[in-house]
């Protein structure tokens, strides 16, 4: 990056400034308070600060309401030129990034917040995009920002700065990339170089694929595009050919179809014509046949009627004969029916006579008497059977009750034995429970005793803790006595350190280098101090002197010279004391103020505490802090011990209760058989075992008692039942006695009772059967009389019906016979008339004629259709239409064939297929190229990532060139500079010993810092801004730097802001009086008179 131009308006003390930069060394010079540092701040702000940042409020020009604005034009290594424009205000601020190819015409590229995003990406200084979550606000800290645009007030800050403060990795990546060239492993470097070379063939510096003829992608990509276009053309041609072919095929098919339609129409017409002719011929013959057939049918019908009448006459004659025979048979049957009627009338009369009624009454009386006798017998038998059954039941009850009473007695005995056994078991359980209760008591006694013993131990521990707490408090008190009172606090110490630093800086700024030569003109005692240190040797009369405090170049008796950086004091005997202080007035005043403050604010403290310097004071404060920490620890430990003791003491409170409980238990145990209980406890039985055993015994005792109670209950129930049975036996015996039966019968008598019962049953059955028979006879006697009269009357009715039916049949037969006779007479007359006509007919001849006509008709072909005239006309019209369409289709085919003439057909398909193959190959090739170069890119990126991750040689890479230059500058006085991997510069090798950089003088630190910056800027090839960074450097080293900066200018741009231009330029480099700037050394050196380039505002910018 190179800055081309900066334009500033209303920025802090600058009303307006425009500076054009050269490509190499730019020295912007002018007196103090001109706004040089403000210009540097403007550059920093336009590059790094968002226009809406609150920090920008500091930039508002005093005594003006205008918003500060800055425009910075710069170029990048890829040749692109950019202009960043910012107007800082909230609200009303604006940012714009413009791009230009020629540096004259700019076009907008980004606006607003996108500007900062793009600028930070372009810079690659390790500053995250403002859009990134957690991105720093205000002026973002960054290692490269500090290195390249470091502030005047923090010249040596770069030595303490590291990459750790960066908000993204771009700074590290950029540095690694730039520094890698001289840091990497040779193999790694070589591999990376080649891979980078291959990658560069295909990709630009920003990682985009190259375009144009030299790009490896272009050739293959163009080939693919070319073939794709060719293929598209061919496919179109194929499709066109196919369409034409399809069209032709379609026309061909249409032609064939239309030809088929035409032929079909013609055929149909012909068929119809033929069918019509055939149909006409057949119609004529068919008419002839119909007439002949009709004649034949008439003749045959006449013959058929004559024959039928002959048959009818024959049938009528047979009917007449059968009718006569039937009438004769019916007359015989009627006579039979008449005789039957008379017999039936006689039978009815007999059944209804008085003798028959008298016989029936007598028999009924006999039967009624017998029924009464039988019923009396049956009642007697029933009574006997009832008594016998009752006695049987009583005897059965008596037997069962006696048996049950005996069984009940046995059961009662068993229950009594069971109850006794259960009662014994319950007693045993009860005794065991008592022993267990005693054991539990004993156990509680033992527990209480053990708990009291444990509390005694706790009491001892509490006492020990209390003792240790007291000891540790005493220890803390002892340590507290060692702490020095009224030490400064940390913040006071930090303020003192800052004051010391400011004083060092202020005094360093006084340093301009003083060479003092003292010539003694008379014998007078001389003494001197240089930079506050005594100069030895001035009072010596002879001999060499050792003057270590200053760089003494020559010593003689009469002439002594020594150097001082900031000032010296020369005491001339009692005559005079000369005090010379270097530096500009303002600087001296600043230093003096600071010295005054030092004396007032720091020295009293140092003296009071009897320490030499702040470092020692720092140690004292540090030791004091350590003591305080130890005291706190001791006191905390003591509190912990006390707290633990208190907690334990609370446990001791329950000891009294325990002792009371123990006494109670002891009393309870007195006089108890504790030996048996001890035996239980000696089995290592604890509370839980005893409790388990107690529960089991309780259960056992309960079960036994329940068994006992159950047995007793059942015994009582059995006794009750026995009593009931005894009552039942007594009752049965009494009943039997009432019935007159003896005492219970033995088993042998049971058979007697059964036989008696059977006998009684048999008697009852016999009586019932006799009663049934007599009843039946009585019923028959009544119904028999009624049946006889009914049957006689029914037979009479039937005989009369048959006679009437026979009379009716006889009449009908007579009528039918008369009808038949009449019909036969009619038929005979008709037959006589027809016979004359039939004799005139020739049926055979008529049949022959019909057959002949039929044969002729059969020979004629039958038409498949029966067309009409209308159909025939329609067929003629179809033929005409089909002919026209066929002609039209032929014309279409010819036209399509003509269209095929210019089409590719198979060739196009073949070419398309070839092109497809070519495209496949070209696409593969394109892909291969992409894979190949993407692989190179991936390799480069991965190598760099790996290198970043490893990161171990980054510091090494930086330390080497810086050390080399620093060694040149200091004539090899210092060894290697140690730079950490995060680029923090920490140590320097001095005479073989690693020393902190902070131990160097301020001037040396600023020179080292400047070299570090130069080296980094040079490696990055980017602009370096030095804002009066070598104020503490002596003329000799300034001259060395001047040469180095000129060398640097050939490689990268550097902008120096200074009030001492001749530290950086030759006189001949300076512009003429009327010039703002002058370019020398082929434009590589440019001197710019700031007083002519800027217009200041009203007040002084404290920063510049």
């Amino acid at each position, binding site marked *: 990056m190179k800055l081309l131009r900066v334009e500033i308006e209303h920025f802090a003390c600058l009303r307006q400034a425009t500076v054009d930069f050269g490509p190499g060394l730019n020295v912007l010079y002018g007196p103090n308070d001109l706004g040089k540092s403000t210009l540097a701040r403007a550059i920093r702000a336009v590059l790094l600060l968002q226009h809406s940042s609150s920090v920008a409020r500091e930039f508002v020009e005093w005594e003006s309401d205008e918003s500060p604005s800055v425009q910075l034009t710069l170029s990048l290594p890829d040749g692109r030129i950019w202009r960043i424009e910012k107007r800082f205000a909230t609200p009303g601020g604006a940012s714009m990034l413009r791009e230009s190819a020629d540096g004259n015409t700019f076009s907008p590229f980004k606006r607003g917040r996108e500007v900062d995003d793009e600028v930070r990406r372009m810079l690659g200084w390790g500053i995250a995009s403002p859009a990134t979550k957690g991105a720093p606000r205000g002026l973002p800290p960054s290692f490269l920002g500090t290195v390249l645009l470091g502030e005047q007030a923090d010249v040596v800050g770069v030595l303490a700065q590291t990459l750790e403060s960066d908000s993204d990795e771009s700074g590290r990546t950029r540095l690694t990339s730039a520094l890698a060239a001289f840091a990497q492993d040779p193999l790694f470097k070589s591999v990376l170089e080649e891979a980078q070379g291959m990658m560069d063939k295909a990709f630009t510096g920003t990682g985009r694929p190259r375009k144009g003829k030299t790009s490896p992608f272009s050739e293959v990509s163009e080939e693919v595009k070319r073939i794709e276009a060719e293929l598209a053309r061919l496919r179109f041609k194929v499709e066109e*050919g196919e369409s034409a*072919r399809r069209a032709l095929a379609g026309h061909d098919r249409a032609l064939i179809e239309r030809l088929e339609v035409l032929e079909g129409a013609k055929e149909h017409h012909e068929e119809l014509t033929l069918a019509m002719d055939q149909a006409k011929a057949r119609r004529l013959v068919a008419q002839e046949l119909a007439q002949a057939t009709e004649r034949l049918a008439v003749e045959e019908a006449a013959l058929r009627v004559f024959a039928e009448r002959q048959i009818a006459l024959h049938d009528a004659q047979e009917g007449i004969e059968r009718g006569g025979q039937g009438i004769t048979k019916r007359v015989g049957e009627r006579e039979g029916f008449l005789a039957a009627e008379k017999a039936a009338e006689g039978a009815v009369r007999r059944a209804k006579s008085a003798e028959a009624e008298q016989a029936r009454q007598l028999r009924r009386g006999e039967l009624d008497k017998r029924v009464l006798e039988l019923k009396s017998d049956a009642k007697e038998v029933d009574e006997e059977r009832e008594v016998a059954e009752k006695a049987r039941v009583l005897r059965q009850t008596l037997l069962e009750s006696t048996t049950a009473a005996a069984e009940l007695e046995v059961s009662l005995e068993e229950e009594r034995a069971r109850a006794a056994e259960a009662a014994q078991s319950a007693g045993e359980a009860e005794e065991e429970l008592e022993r267990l209760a005693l054991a539990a008591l004993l156990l509680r006694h033992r527990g209480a005793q053990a708990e009291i013993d444990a509390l005694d131990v706790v009491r001892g521990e509490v006492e020990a803790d209390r003792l240790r707490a007291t000891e540790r408090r005493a220890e803390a008190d002892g340590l507290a006595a060692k702490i020095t009172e009224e030490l400064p606090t940390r913040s006071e110490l930090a303020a003192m350190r800052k004051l010391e630093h400011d004083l060092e800086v202020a005094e360093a700024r006084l340093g301009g280098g003083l060479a003092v030569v003292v010539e003694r003109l008379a014998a007078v005692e001389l003494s001197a101090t240089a930079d506050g240190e005594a100069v030895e040797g001035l009072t010596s009369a002879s001999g060499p002197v050792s003057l270590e405090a200053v760089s003494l170049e020559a010593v003689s008796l009469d002439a002594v010279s020594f150097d001082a950086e900031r000032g010296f004091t020369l005491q001339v005997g009692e005559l005079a004391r000369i005090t010379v202080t270097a530096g500009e007035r303002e600087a001296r005043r600043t230093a003096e103020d600071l010295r005054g403050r030092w004396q007032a604010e720091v020295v009293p403290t140092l003296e009071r505490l009897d320490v030499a310097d702040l470092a020692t004071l720092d140690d004292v404060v540090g030791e004091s802090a350590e003591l305080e920490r130890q005291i706190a620890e001791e006191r905390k430990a003591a509190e912990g011990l006390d707290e633990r003791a208190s907690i334990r003491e609370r446990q001791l409170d329950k000891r009294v209760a325990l002792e009371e409980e123990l006494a109670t238990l002891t009393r309870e145990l007195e006089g108890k058989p504790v030996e048996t209980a001890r035996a239980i406890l000696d089995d290592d039985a604890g509370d839980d075992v005893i409790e388990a055993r107690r529960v089991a015994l309780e259960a056992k005792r309960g079960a036994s008692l329940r068994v006992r109670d159950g047995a007793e209950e059942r015994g009582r129930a059995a006794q009750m039942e026995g009593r009931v049975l005894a009552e039942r036996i007594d009752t049965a015996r009494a009943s039997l006695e009432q019935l007159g039966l003896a005492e219970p019968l033995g088993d042998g008598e049971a058979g007697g009772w059964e036989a008696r019962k059977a006998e009684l049953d048999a008697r009852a059955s016999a009586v019932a059967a006799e009663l049934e028979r007599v009843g039946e006879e009585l019923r028959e006697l009544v119904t028999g009389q009624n049946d006889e009269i009914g049957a006689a009357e029914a037979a009479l009715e039937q005989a009369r019906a048959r006679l009437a039916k026979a009379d009716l049949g006889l009449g009908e037969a007579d009528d039918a016979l008369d009808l038949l006779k009449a019909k036969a007479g009619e038929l005979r007359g008709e037959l006589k008339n027809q016979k004359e006509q039939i004799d005139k007919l020739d049926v055979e001849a008529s049949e022959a004629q019909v057959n002949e006509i039929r044969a002729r008709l059969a020979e004629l072909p039958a038409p498949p259709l029966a067309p009409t005239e209308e159909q025939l006309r329609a067929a003629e019209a179809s033929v005409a239409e089909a002919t026209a369409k066929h002609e039209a289709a032929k014309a279409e085919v010819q036209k399509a064939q003509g269209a095929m003439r210019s*089409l590719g057909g198979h*060739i196009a398909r073949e070419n398309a297929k070839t092109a497809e193959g070519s*495209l496949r190959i070209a696409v593969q090739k394109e892909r291969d190229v992409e894979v190949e170069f993407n692989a*190179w890119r991936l*390799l480069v990126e991965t190598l760099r990532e790996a290198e970043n991750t*490893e990161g171990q040689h980054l510091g090494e890479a930086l330390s080497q060139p810086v050390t080399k230059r620093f060694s040149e500058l200091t004539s090899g006085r210092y060894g290697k500079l140690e730079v950490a991997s995060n680029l923090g510069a920490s140590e320097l090798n001095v005479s073989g010993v690693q020393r902190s950089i902070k131990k160097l003088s301020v001037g040396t630190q600023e020179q080292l810092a400047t070299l570090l910056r130069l080296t980094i800027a040079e490696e990055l090839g980017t602009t370096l801004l030095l804002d009066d960074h070598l104020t503490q450097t002596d003329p000799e080293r300034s001259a060395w730097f001047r040469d180095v900066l000129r060398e640097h200018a050939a490689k990268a741009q550097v902008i120096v802001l200074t009030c001492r231009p001749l530290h950086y330029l030759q006189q001949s480099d300076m512009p003429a009086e009327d010039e703002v700037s002058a370019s020398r050394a082929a434009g590589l050196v440019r001197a710019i008179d700031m007083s002519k380039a800027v217009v200041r505002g009203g007040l002084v910018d404290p920063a510049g």
Partner: protein
Amino acid sequence: MSEVGEEEVALRVLHTADWHLGRKFAGFDEADRLKLTRARLEVVDVILSSAERNRVDAVLCAGDLFDGPKPESDWWKGLADKLTLRGWKDRPVVLLPGNHDPLTETSVYHPTHPFRAALPPWVHVVDRDDFELPLGDDALLVARPCRRQSGQDDNALLLPAREEGDTRIRIGMVHGSTFAMPGLQMDFPIAEDAAVQRGLDYLALGDTHAWEVLPPASCPAVYPSAPEPTKFGEGESGSIAVVLFRRHGRSPQIRQERVSAWRWRVETVRDLESLHALARGAELRQTVLRLKVEMRAVPEDYHEVEQILEQLKGTVAAHGRVGVLQVERDDLELDTRGIEQVFEDLPAVVQATARALKEREATEPEVARRALFHLYRLCRERGART
């Protein structure tokens, strides 16, 4: 072909077709394209020399002599020059328009085209449908041109039939395909028995690029093949037919004569040994080789494969062993299993790079493997112990 006495010979003809002058070979490198394109005209010299060597009475060129109907002038001028240089008088050369270079009003064969004017008088173009050319007293050539690039006419069946009593040798020449397959739409189909139907003794055909003789032997129909192959997988191509007709009406004798400079091959190698064998094998300078590499190789073998391919293909500085090489390496894959060990003696940053690339294999397998191979090769070329 058995020896036939001169007195027995009635007629000798050279039958060729499908030169496809001006054909472009997309899919090849520019240099290879030129080689293959130029070869098409170079083989014409070989054909004409064969005609002289075989002392044929006529040269019959059965269509598709140009790749398109309107070739660039380099092609038609080049052909006309080569023909003119021969200076033949009694050996007619007959050029038949095929479907690639049909006879149209603007094509190279049209009587008004400068090509026609550049041709010597003994070169005939079949520019009429009733083209007839007596070949001496005893033979007659009948031919019919393609008049468009696509069509369904059978030009063979449209040739005039032998008239009764005509005993001359009748040769028919048309361009079209006898290759009939159901559903396959071909242009200018030719009935397989067209020669029999039209009473021909020989039917000279062009279109199919592979050698083919269709029966019957008494009146064969012949495709002489493209004298230089035009693509991979064309079958038996690269030849011409020298045909000898004997007196007494016996069947013609046909001899296939190879004329092509290039052979086209497709090879697939699946292991390093096969690739070595191919590289060490027969001379391949006149071969157009499509080489398919299908293998998975550890870095060392992969490196060797790359070297052999380079040796076959050639470099800017050296010719390759193969005349024209097309490599298909889709299925050539670097075997990265255990590749970490390959780098284990190298600097930590290189090892870290290898590890990172191996991890990238999961998302970008092809690119990551290629990058790993580059890393391997670069380290190896720098003497690192890989």
